[in-house]
């Protein structure tokens, strides 16, 4: 296939995720507000916030190290690249084989690794709380994710997202293990994006915050980078679920523009549905105590392991 258009498509994809991420965030906030009988912020509020943050000067603690200043960019970049590797509207992108699902998971892992580190850099107790809890969640969420990957990979016979999507498209059939994987993935997604019931993105109440505690010391452009990164991460997970479990409408490799358009539209729809369901879920339950989260994530881990076992035992599940 010709290199230039492929690169172009890849570039479009990267910009697309960057552009859509705040929108998804705004959408969820809006819907949430509506559900709580509030008017809520306008849909584009996240963009405004980001712009303002970027323009502001960055206030940094005296004892911040170079890691603290370069952290946000690395985190953002890692997340962005990971998101760019997940097929959104088209499969078989040029660089999609640069990293398979495991690698994408690990990329998010490195983003979290640095997030946790910068949380500890200033040496405040809040940063410590945030990092240690984040790593505790991660120590369960990541293996759960790997188990999900196993299940899916064993079904599709590949860890390449494009191949998986293609496989699901071509011979779609309800599978127990796939269902398990879906539930597990949703749980992991909620935990990873610091949503209710695991964490509350809106709170700054000391004892409950996890993600917010890590980024407490950030301001200005650095904070903007981190906010954007988390927005992209949310988008990533939604599109990941969409790509693995609802790959319909994805444009096949070397497709024409019409297919791309179809893909884009269907992707947009998927995003909205996903965001809506997320909000629905969030508003319907309350946040849980920190030490009940492991049980929550443990469920995901067990489901993933179960799915993998079933696949190992027989191909028919």
């Amino acid at each position, binding site marked *: 296939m010709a290199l230039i258009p492929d690169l172009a498509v890849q570039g479009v994809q990267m910009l697309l995720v960057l552009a859509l991420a705040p929108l998804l965030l705004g959408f969820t906030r809006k819907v949430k507000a509506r559900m709580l009988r509030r008017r809520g912020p306008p849909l584009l509020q996240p963009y405004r916030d980001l712009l303002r943050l970027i323009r502001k*000067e960055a206030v940094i603690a005296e004892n911040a190290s170079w890691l603290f200043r370069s952290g946000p960019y690395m985190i953002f970049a890692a997340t962005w690249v990971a998101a760019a590797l997940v097929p959104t509207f088209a499969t078989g992108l040029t660089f999609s084989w640069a990293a398979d699902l495991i690698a994408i998971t690990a990329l998010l892992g490195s983003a979290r690794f640095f997030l946790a580190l910068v949380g500890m850099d200033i040496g405040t107790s*809040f940063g410590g709380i945030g990092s240690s809890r984040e790593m505790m969640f991660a120590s369960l969420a990541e293996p759960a994710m*790997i188990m999900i990957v196993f299940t899916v990979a064993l079904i599709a016979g590949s860890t390449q997202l494009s191949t998986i999507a293609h496989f699901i498209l071509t011979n779609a059939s309800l599978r127990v293990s796939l269902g398990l994987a879906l539930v597990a993935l949703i749980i992991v997604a909620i935990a990873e994006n610091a949503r209710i019931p695991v964490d509350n993105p809106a709170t700054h109440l000391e004892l409950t915050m996890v993600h917010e505690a890590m980024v407490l010391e950030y301001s200005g452009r650095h904070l903007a980078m981190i906010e954007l990164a988390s927005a992209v991460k949310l988008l990533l997970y939604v599109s990941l679920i969409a790509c693995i479990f609802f790959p319909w409408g994805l444009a096949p490799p070397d497709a024409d523009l019409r297919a791309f358009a179809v893909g884009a539209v269907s992707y947009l729809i998927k995003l909205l549905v996903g965001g809506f369901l997320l909000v629905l879920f969030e508003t319907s339950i309350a946040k849980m105590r*920190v030490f009940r989260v492991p049980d929550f994530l443990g469920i995901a*881990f067990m489901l993933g*392991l179960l799915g993998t*076992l079933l696949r190992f035992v027989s191909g028919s599940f």
Partner: protein
Amino acid sequence: MPVAMALTGVAALLATSLIAALLQRLRGASRLVYLICSIVCVVLLGLACSQLLAPAHPAPTMALPIGLPWIGAHFRIDALSAFFLLVTNLGGAGASLFAIGYGAHETAPGRVLPFYPAFLAGMNLVVLADDAFAFLVAWEFMSLSSWALVMSHHADGENRRAGYIYIVMASFGTLMLLLGFGLLAGAGGGYTFSEIRSVAAAVLPGLTLTLVLIGTGSKAGLVPLHVWLPLAHPAAPSHVSALMSGVMTKVAVYGFVRIVFDLMGPAAWWWSIPVIGIAGITCVMGVLSALMQHDLKRLLAYHSVENIGIIFIGLGLALAFSAYGMQAPAALALTAALFHVFNHCLFKSLLFFGAGAVLNATGERDMEHLGGLIHNMPLTALAFLTGCTAISALPPLNGFVSEWLTFQAILLSPALPSWGLKLLVPAVGAMLALSAALAAACFVKAFGVTFLGRPRTPRAAGAGETERASLAAMLAFALFCLLSGLLPGLCIDSLAPVTHALVGAHMPTQTAMPWLSIVPIAESRSSYNGLLLFAFIVLSTLATIEVIHRFASRQVRRAPAWDCGFPDPSPATQYTADSFAQPIRRVFGSVVFRATESIDMPPPEDGRASRMIVIVRDLVWEALYAPIAGIVETVAERLNRLQFLTIRQYLSLVFVALVGLLLVVSIWP
């Protein structure tokens, strides 16, 4: 004649240790010794590379008229030995280079210098040996010299205890190996490896496998034989710890591979089950124990246990695959294991170097007394951070690649017909995933508490950057970590002859792949391209920075930490290592370590501070080793009464023996 060259190198090392024994008093002796060591190691490294990249057929051998008289000492460099020779001397060279700077601070050089080259020589000899006797001599010599190094700071009773446990475990392992070789060689005493190979199938393979697993596992640190490791590795000077953790454990892996894959003949499927099972448990136990530590070097040592587990998972899978004749997957699994051997040698040495540098700069190993070192030791911090990222299996560094390969191998294992494996492998895969995630947590803790935050003690505050030579070693290894992460194809291809010799196949040539990405089986199935990923990340980072700094603000204001409005001046309020691990301890520790937390809250009137007591127990020690020690103690005590009998009672012993024997004779047919 490569073998002769290698042996010359070894001889040079031994000579160096003699010289060191004589010249230890001299000023600059340590620089000289370490310089010689690093040069010799580099030479051997080159030799190993040449042998690995262009293996001679048949493998060059050499026999010296020493050792067992009627056998002599045989040495051989085939692909496998070449690879491990490479690993050994890579680690050796790095450690020696590091020690050129580090060794200057040694308080008792006379107890380190003579044994350090001997230790290197011993490890090289193990890899070179081609008959059972030479192998065991080298093996035990390695243990002996490292024991001397562990004992180098003997004033501390803890170190003496560590050394004692170490040497006992080591010789226990050696005796097990000895028995194993006894089985392999048979009553005839055919001790050369070629003779052992020529025997079609091992007698009592189960027993042999057990013995070998115990023998090599006790040196590599498989649970539950790992107890000596977290004691002994930290006790030694840091560059030696780096060697012990980064290289000696790999030599143990070599022993296992050599015997099980090479000498024991065709594998049976059930061999893999104990290996994989123990390996999985080792992973989790190792990393969890590491998380519980607040002594930096002990944390690293425990973490070696975890990595050994990962390596043995790969080896076990390779055994299973090759037992069922699935050569390509076997090659994949074996490659994963060996590549991880290489990687672990790199980043574990690097991390121990870092720990050593910190130890030199602050005189502290306890993380609770450190913190904020990133400001005074930026380069060390950078190198250490690279090591942490690599060992936590994060892309784009090398640790991730080998673990990724291991995952790919696991994903191939449903094809295995055995039901036991069908159930075992996914469970172990889960353990691997779990330990990978925990490793990340562990090294966030290690780096965050040691280098980030505010200094917890004046010594930490007053730290300075370490010597140039040491820095060079660390940065070089960091660079290697990055490179082998970006260009894994090269390493994988250079492993091809090894896997080909052991399991009869090798992975597809990676350097032929487009864009230098690695593809274990087929691109549609799975592929990974570290280089591209790295380029991506770097580019997008730069782009973002560029954009923001150009079109948005770039000014910075320094201010006191915000900390939700009430910042606390005292660094004591920071999260400590223990408190960082507390959530995980509550999740896992209560099961694995019977960890209990109790808070001692004084009544209102008395002024003492309230304390939190955390008790973490080592169940392996309590369940396995303490009873054995107890038994020996009691038996010794009971028998000891025989020392205090009277002559008449001794006579009656003789009398009873006589009468008893006479009775036997009289009733003898």
